[in-house]
């Protein structure tokens, strides 16, 4: 089952992510690099999906576009019913704020802020009042099992704890998609299992989870795999929620 070319149409209600013939070209010197060369697929709400591929397969470019940090050169990317390709910088920022929860390989917590403050950052940009931010941060910390460390700085936590904080922060604005980039890349295997367990829980609670990884072990946790190669979709397996 290779690429499914679908006609360019508005996504269905439960299609939370939809790529329509997405291309992303870079010009390096005189050469055009086709990082993504016509990719189409869609992910249903509540799916647990991994995007895989070796380095050079277009995985990073895919992540940037999925994360609304970059826009396709052509084609359409629909996230939660809105076409990202048509957005300006402010709209894109707002879209990230409301619809995406990022979890990074190296955690990317703000070192000067406490755990609670880190979790509050997205809510702060959303304009929630202080008391509500506090309350929600406590709730989220409880959900990822880090509530005993709310007043600590990230530097005082272990890698696994930091990633839990990052997950809590990603969940802060109740995003449509939880997007994790090699979430266990900096963790030992025991901690990795715990973090993957956390994603599993979130999936069971109904969250849409998208993992981007090159490790088959990690991808195995997901219910569906999209494999990239040379900027194209090589295969889609599992099919649960993905097409």
């Amino acid at each position, binding site marked *: 089952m290779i690429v499914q070319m679908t006609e360019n149409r508005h996504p269905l209600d439960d299609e939370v992510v939809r790529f329509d013939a997405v291309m992303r070209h870079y010009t390096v010197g005189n050469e055009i690099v086709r990082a993504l060369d016509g990719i189409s697929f869609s992910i249903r709400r509540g799916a647990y999906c991994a995007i895989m591929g070796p380095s050079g397969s277009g995985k990073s470019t895919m992540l*940037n576009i999925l*994360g609304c*940090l*970059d826009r396709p050169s052509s084609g359409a990317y629909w996230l939660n019913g809105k076409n990202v390709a048509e957005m300006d*910088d*402010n709209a894109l*920022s*707002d*879209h*990230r*704020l*409301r619809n*995406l929860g*990022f979890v*990074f390989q190296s955690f*990317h*917590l*703000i*070192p*000067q802020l406490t755990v609670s403050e880190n979790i509050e*950052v*997205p809510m*702060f*940009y959303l*304009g929630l009042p*202080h008391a509500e931010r506090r309350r929600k941060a406590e709730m989220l910390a409880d959900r990822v099992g880090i509530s005993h460390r709310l007043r600590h700085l990230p530097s005082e936590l272990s890698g696994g704890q930091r990633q839990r904080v990052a997950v809590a*922060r990603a969940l802060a*604005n109740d995003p449509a998609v939880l997007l994790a980039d090699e979430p266990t890349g900096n963790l030992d295997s025991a901690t990795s299992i715990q973090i993957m367990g956390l994603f599993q829980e979130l999936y069971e609670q109904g969250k849409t989870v998208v993992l981007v990884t090159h490790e088959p072990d990690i991808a195995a946790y997901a219910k569906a795999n999209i494999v990239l190669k040379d900027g194209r979709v090589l295969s889609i397996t599992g099919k649960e929620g993905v097409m």
Partner: protein
Amino acid sequence: MNQILHFWPFIKLGLTDVWRHKARSFLTMLGVVFGVGSVIAMLAVGEGASQQALDSIKRLGSENIMVTSVKPSSEDGASTGAQRGRLAVYGLLYDDEVRIRETVPGVVVTVPARMTRRNARVNERQLEMRVVETVPEWFDVVQRPVLAGRVLTANDMRMRSNVCVLTEYGVRRLLAAEGILGQHIRIASGVFEVAGIVKNETGGAVRAPDSEADAYIPLTTGTRLFGEANIRYSAGGMEGEKVELSEIIVKMADTKKVEAGSKAIEAVLTRFHKKKDFRIDVPLTLLREAERTKRTYNIVLGAIAGISLLVGGIGIMNIMLASVTERTKEIGIRRAIGARRSRIVIQFLINTCVLSIGGGIVGLLLGVAIPFLITVFTDMPTVVQPYSLILAFGISVGIGIIFGLYPAMRAAELDPIEALRHE
């Protein structure tokens, strides 16, 4: 209020950031501290000096014209009076006073005075005083608070009495703690009873008619005792000068007549004086000049202060640019989470404003303290004007915004993908 609440988290963020880099923030602030401090201090010193100058000019009286005898620059050629031996004869005459009073329109009163320096003595205590031989109207024209006793009267003039009025300063030097009024002091060849004491007015950039140890005696008494020639004997022989009047103070009916009056006086005197042996000072003109000088002074001070503030601002900008580089990753994280560019701009602007306003507040205190210390230690008057505080504070906020804008824009323009990759 809502806006302040909205920005409060950013302000808190800025404050914690400044606090985290205490030493760096402090050094950065110093530029603004000294800039703002020097603006306030310089304005205060300048204002103090010019107010003092203006005050002393105003004390001369804005309706007054001062005509003063001056020694002509060259003694040879035709001179006003005869030149006998080495006796220099020049200056204003009794007739000049009458001429001015009778011919110049708008004159209210003319006050003649002759000023000489003579030795005064009480027992063994000695002091060289300026002896002002004048008329009672002097005290109407040159107003001084009377501390004790009385000033000269018409009766003193008529009787040619040996009475004198001393300035506070002269009294302190000469009489010390002894009973003052009614004391007798010897001035040159005469013995005078102290009739009153007036307050001294010291200091000031402009020559005041009485700024030292003065003894006022009736003009008639002076003429009777000392004559009009002031002769000093020295090893080389005798040297002296004959001046009938050292000064005539002309009081006009109002300030509008002063300018025309001074021209008329000049015309009258020029007709009767072959040489230019007098000078006419108009306090009103001096006042205008002083005000012009003050403006120039303010411009120069403003330029100096402006440069120091500019240097302070550049210091802040420099640090903020370094801070943007240092916090590239944080900016990337915030952008990835969903912060708009404008939020990043605000965050960095508030950060610079915290620095510049903090510096501004410390500078404000410094700017108030320096003039205070100057006044305490040097007796120089200083005036800290409220507007200069508001100005300085406004400038420090302005500097934060102006010099913070560029680093903030740089921060906001960072590509979030690149910024996240930054180590």
